[in-house]
């Protein structure tokens, strides 16, 4: 039978992406200049899915406000996961909203429609299907072993480099998955979907379908720069292409004296002033402003970001409504970045600014700086390392 319903898991925060997830869940973070979740829903709708069930939880109003009751004319049913007790628990919340067969995808990774089509087609012969793909960095994600199209082993974050195939997080199930979820043991009170799938793997009941194409995930804030590069490289942007690899939304205003160096995408309502040089590998969100003579390179500047005149931003990620005053300087990575207790060495990162950071003029950021939500950086300060949420930094 064909599948017309998809369950999208979009309830989790993604806490390793803080401070960017302070006000929204990971699926709403930008892949270039559109939320990751838009790519996921595009993949589903392009594959012929006609009923979307979004499991929402953490900061769910952001998902609901963005998509509303429908996406590309496909109705959306919102199901609330009140406590974030894992992806399996999230899927259980949707049990009442789905038919006999359905697709399940993670809402926080960019996928392509052929992965969805592949599991839908393979589901004709198997009750549980999982899309797998080759990935150069398999040890970072959930890896799988496959024999004759059947998954034989399921290893979350393996040590061995031998695992080349990863779980793409795109599934087709019938309702037996709910039985497997009911039987599965919780881990510290949470129920990951992979635990239930693992039990089916042990029974050799999960079919693998090999796919390829764009599959990108962000674990840490700076990964959004790589995600943007990949999305731009594949030309997966919504705006019309003005020049080669230069995409500009119709409602954006680019001064004729500004330079856009592809690949670059400019979102709706955004303005770029005279003398600004934007690109390569830059994604400007909605209603952003790049002031006169500013230089922006390798950056994801999200909705309502203001970049003051004469600023230099390299390898930089901003959240919503970030105001960077004139002559802000972020010279760029590589850097050692501390997240929690872990130190990530040699990451290519200039700075991350959480939502609503205000930097007055002349602020400089050492490579690898993480600035927390709503922090205030007064005129002329030099910051490095981590700046906590809501703090004020003065000279």
């Amino acid at each position, binding site marked *: 039978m064909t599948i017309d319903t998809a369950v999208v898991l979009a309830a989790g925060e993604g806490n390793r992406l803080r401070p960017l997830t302070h*006000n929204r869940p990971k699926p709403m973070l930008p892949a270039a200049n559109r939320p990751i979740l838009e790519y996921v829903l595009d993949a589903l709708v392009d594959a012929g899915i006609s009923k979307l069930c*979004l499991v*929402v939880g953490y900061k*769910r*109003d952001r*998902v*609901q*406000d963005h*998509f*509303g*009751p*429908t996406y590309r*004319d496909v*109705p*959306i049913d*919102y199901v*609330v996961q009140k406590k974030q007790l894992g992806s399996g628990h999230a899927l259980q919340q949707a049990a009442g909203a789905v038919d006999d067969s359905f697709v399940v995808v993670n809402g926080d990774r960019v996928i392509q429609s052929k992965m969805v089509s592949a599991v839908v087609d393979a589901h004709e012969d198997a009750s549980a299907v999982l899309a797998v793909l080759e990935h150069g960095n398999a040890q970072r994600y959930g890896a799988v072993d496959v024999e004759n199209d059947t998954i034989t082993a399921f290893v979350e974050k393996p040590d061995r480099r031998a695992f080349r195939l990863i779980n793409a997080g795109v599934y087709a199930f019938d309702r037996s998955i709910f039985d497997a979820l009911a039987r599965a043991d919780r881990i510290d009170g949470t129920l990951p979907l992979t635990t239930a799938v693992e039990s089916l793997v042990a029974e050799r009941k999960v079919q693998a379908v090999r796919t390829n194409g764009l599959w990108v995930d962000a674990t840490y804030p700076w990964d959004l720069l790589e995600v943007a590069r990949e999305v731009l490289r594949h030309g997966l942007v919504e705006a019309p292409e003005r020049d080669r690899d230069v995409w500009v939304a119709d*409602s954006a*205003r680019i*001064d004729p004296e500004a330079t856009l160096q592809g690949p670059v995408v400019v979102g*709706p*309502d955004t*303005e770029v*002033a*005279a003398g600004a040089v934007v690109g390569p590998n830059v994604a400007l969100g*909605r*209603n952003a*402003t790049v002031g006169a003579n500013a230089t922006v390179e390798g950056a994801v500047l999200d*909705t*309502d970001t203001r970049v003051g005149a004469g600023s230099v931003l390299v390898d930089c990620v901003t959240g*919503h*409504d970030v105001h960077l005053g004139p002559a802000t300087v972020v010279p760029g990575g590589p850097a050692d970045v501390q997240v929690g207790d872990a130190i990530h060495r040699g990451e290519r990162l200039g700075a991350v600014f959480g939502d*609503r950071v205000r930097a007055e003029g002349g602020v400089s950021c050492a490579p690898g700086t993480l600035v927390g939500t709503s922090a205030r950086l007064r005129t002329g300060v030099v910051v490095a390392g981590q700046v906590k949420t809501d703090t004020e930094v003065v000279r």
Partner: protein
Amino acid sequence: MCGIVGCVGRGEETLSTLVHGLSKLEYRGYDSAGVALADGDLDVVKRAGELDDLRAALDGDSLSGRVGIGHTRWSTHGPPTDANAHPHRDCTERVAVVHNGIIENYEDLKADLLEAGHEFRSDTDTEVVPHLVEDRLAAGDDPEAAVRAAVSRLEGSYAIAVVVAGDDRVFAAREDSPLVLGLGDDAYYLASDVPAFREFTDRVVYLEDGEFAVISADEWRVTDDEGRRIDRDVDTVEWSPEETGKSGYDHFMLKEIHEQPRSLRQCLRERVSELAGSVSLDVDVDPDGVQFVACGTSYHAALCGVHLFQQAGIPAQAFLASEYATSPPPVDGDLVVGVTQSGETADTLSALREAKRRGAETLAVTNVVGSSVSRECDQTLYIRAGPEIGVAATKTFSSQVVALALLVLSLTGASRHDIAALRDLPGNVQQVLDESDAEEIARAYEGSDAYFFIGRGLQFPVSLEGALKFKEISYEHAEGFAAGELKHGPLALVTENTPVFALVTGDGEQARKTIGNVKEVEARGAPVVAVTDGKSDVHRYADHVLDIPASDQRTAAILANVQLQLVSYHAAALLGRSIDKPRNLAKSVTVE
């Protein structure tokens, strides 16, 4: 204010199509509802109460018919009873009529009909229509001619739909009340508003005043009052049927409050450029002065407009539309601006007609493309807020104020600072939504005797709007006052059990004076909730604070209002009120 629907060509699904249509028009009234199906016989079922009461009455009843009309009512003539519910029938029970509007000469007509021996079963003005049709049928007219003749005798406002037993057509006529045809592949629809049939088609024809329409299974036809066919353009509706869903929220009102960042972006899109410091609107006016006419929340937006125009040096006044015609002011050189969300508000339309009659240039500020006001005024400024379903207006107020601010800037010229403030607004509203403590405040003051709202300058209309929102959905007593007026009377109402919401933004003279008024209130023991951008020290005198981001004073009014929208919503939610359909109210009022 009522909603009417009609359809032909849906076969066995006629009844469910009508009931679906009525459910989409419930925002227009919900104190009684009914349907009539004609196909050989004429069957009518109608009930006082909400649509669910009609559904219950229909359950198990095997009504069938391939032609039908329906009605959801907001009472004007006669209380909501089964008898007063539409459709209304004639003495022979062969004619059924639904009507939105007011028939002004119904008493004369009714007297004539009673004298001629007709029996009336309701207190409504509408019931004269089926009896008039009955007379013409008895005189030998065919159904179409009979309906035409009946309609020609009516004075007042109406959107009317009629079915006659044994005829497979629906007849309709319009005068000063909205009516739109929907053209499906195999079926035709008519309704007071597009959502009634949007699921089935996006091709529509908006009827004009004085026009008459006939739909049958294989034809639609629009004619003038003498029966001459009129070629009408077919419009395409751009929004999808699902845009009228709640997207995971418990109420449309909360959904619409949350939609404000997006609707404000739409309002501003391609109209402003910060780098060029320019505003461009598709409106060409150059008034010596401005007169606003509006009702309810739109009137409060108009009061904000007055303030913005006056500050820019352009004389401006706002009038309650229902009062405007009573003592109309001189209009020479003035632009008369009608602010109405739906574009169908009868009071506002009537005030605009009065202004036009006296030679004024008119401008409509509205949300609904193709609405009556946009067709009647010389020019239209659309606020682009998208469909608003909740009866309590929220996102449309914000967009109305922004549209009026744009209008002022387009006349006086804008600085980059002006435009930057407007472009920052969607993000600032998002911040209020992300960080608001309104729910806690609502909980803290649940069960108070009354709720007062005070402000000065632009924050005065916001205090009126805050109080209107509060009373209309919570049913609690709420009043807004100009802060300086408090000591001239209303202060007598203030007690320990009447929280006062004080809107204090900026740190200038206005803020200082309002803080003085806050101290007056505090001295009487009333709890104070300050809505503030943190620029003044009002927090020192307040029991609670609702923060808004520091911004331009013009946009601060909108941000303060968003906080008050949330307070009202949560207060009403705590009381378990019918938030999207408050008692006795309808979304847009198409009767005067």
